[in-house]
């Protein structure tokens, strides 16, 4: 199956694929044993899709997200982003993609402990070479969009778990990436904030961004237009829901 036509409208022509994975394996060598976190994973994501990845704990969801986000390299298989083969990119090109194309919300937030919320959000802009006043403005806007406009000078240990998660989301959004990767973005949020974040994602999707969300929660998964289920590192189900 070369092109997975999920909606039958013919838009899954290879050149329309933003993300194209073919025969991806991720294997960890644990002593004498081989642990396959991903087994022969293949799928495409078109520009503008809203995709949820679900599956039990340890099934390989984060592993897959790290590969999509160009943070990790597969043991086997090929990955194209925007028609370019990732394995052939230089370190600088990868850095540019991580900086400009991808916004990553990590499962464990990964904020700089010593830096303020504002500085954490500014980080991608620093590496984009954006000057300080514009940077400040954009970072404050991003924090406002996650309703943290009054917490800019707080450090991570002065924020609640949900607030930290929102700082992480603001950081992922601040550089206006075309792909938003969110690993359990609502895991630490109450239903109200969770709904706010989901509305924000929906808005971003309507603006034409591609969104991939890993989640346990059915309400979150149901907002997506397509759901991929993973079990034991294999794609079990890939279905369009809207």
């Amino acid at each position, binding site marked *: 199956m070369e092109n997975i036509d999920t909606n039958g409208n013919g838009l899954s022509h290879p050149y329309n694929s933003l993300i194209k994975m073919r025969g991806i394996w991720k294997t960890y060598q644990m002593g004498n044993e081989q642990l396959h976190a991903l087994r022969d994973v293949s799928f495409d994501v078109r520009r503008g899709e809203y995709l949820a990845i679900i599956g039990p704990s340890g099934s390989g969801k984060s592993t897959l997200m790290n590969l999509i986000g160009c*943070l990790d390299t597969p043991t086997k298989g090929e990955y194209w982003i925007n028609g370019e083969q990732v394995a052939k990119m230089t370190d*600088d090109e990868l*850095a540019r993609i*991580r900086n400009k194309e991808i916004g990553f919300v990590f499962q464990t937030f990964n904020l700089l402990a010593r830096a303020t919320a504002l500085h954490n959000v500014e980080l991608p802009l*620093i590496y984009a070479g954006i000057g300080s006043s514009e940077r400040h403005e954009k970072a404050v806007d991003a924090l406002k969009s996650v309703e943290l406009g009054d917490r800019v000078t707080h450090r991570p240990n002065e924020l609640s778990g949900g607030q930290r998660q929102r700082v992480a989301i603001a950081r992922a959004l601040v550089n206006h990436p075309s792909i938003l990767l969110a690993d359990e973005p609502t895991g630490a949020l109450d239903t109200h904030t969770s709904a706010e974040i989901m509305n924000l994602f929906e808005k971003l999707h309507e603006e034409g961004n591609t969104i991939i969300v890993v989640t346990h929660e059915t309400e979150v998964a149901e907002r997506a237009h397509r759901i991929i289920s993973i079990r034991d590192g294999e794609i079990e189900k890939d279905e369009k829901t809207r």
Partner: protein
Amino acid sequence: MAFVPSFSIVYESFRLAVGSLRSNKLRTMLTLLGIIVGVTAVIAVVTIINGLDSTVADAFSAQGSTAFSVSKRPLVITSREDFIRFNKRKDVTEQDAEALGRLCDTCWRVGTSINGTGLVKYGENRAENASVRGLSLEMFDIENVSLQAGRLWTDQEGRSGRPLCVVGTDIVDNLFEGRSPYSVIGQEIRIDGIPFTISAVAEPFGKVLGFSRDNFVYVPFEAGQRMFGSRDSIVIHVQVRDSALFETAKDDVRSIMRNRRKKEFSDKDDGFSIDSQDAFIGIYQNATSGIYFATIGVAVISLVVGGIVVMNIMLVSVTERTKEIGLRKAVGAKQSDILLQFMIESVTVTMVGGAIGVFTGYGLAYLLSFVLGFPLLISPSSAFLGVTVSFVVGMISGSYPAWSASRLSPIDAMRNE
């Protein structure tokens, strides 16, 4: 591909460097120590030797490199055997001086001196160990003595044995506390009990290496001869008009003097010694170059040790911040950005150490100049040298840790909890 970091990345790196240095003060202090010691050594030695050079140059240029002396014994004697041997030589006499004045065409001025020390008293006030010299009038030109008050004795007065003297400012200070040079002219002082009238006060020569050169009484050569004549040989001083004639004049003097002593060509010893400042300058330069090299050795060792410490601390810092590095790479930091971050951190430590070292070095030089009494010559070039050296140490010792940090993969770095 040219790598031009944006200002924001440089600034961020610098901010990080300062933050990480401040967050671990004890470690930073220890890291700095090696660099501080090295740079302090360099700066202090360069500054001290500059100061010494200038005083020594000043002291000797009074005579210029146009004058030399002819005496029975050389100025520098290194062994007892030599001392005994030199003592067996014939005395240098006024007749020798007269002959040189007559026969040596390249000699411009020929003066004579007879030198000793004595107890100088004015009433109950005493100046001990004053240098007492009997000088012919030419000596005031050769040694560039100028007077701030009073007048020199005339040739006539000198020959007729009038007990006149020129005193240095230390004598005025010691014997006539608080009195002006003018007011002491005409006062009678006693040198080893013999009365002399002060006819002039010389301009001060100042100190060399902490020793005052103004504790002297000059008397007419004839008067000096009466005091010391029976005890010691005289010294003849020769000055040439142009330093280009210096060596020729020395050779002329040597052959005239050897002739007068009927020295065979084969006789190795002249029977007298010719000394000029070159001898002192040579000794001085030997001594200072020794100090120079010893300190450069100390500085290099402490900089190498300091550099190794910096490298170690940087490696620890990289290991501690693996997660942070991973995150930075995940949000778009390039290898070169991470490299730059840690290079800036390393160079910041060593430059701070270097800057402190420059100040402590100057402080040390200041203390020594104060104690030894030479001018403090702070040269910006030595500060520049100190800072440059610490910059280079920072670059070298930061490069491996920074390189290894830049090579971390974002995912491995972030998993490190």
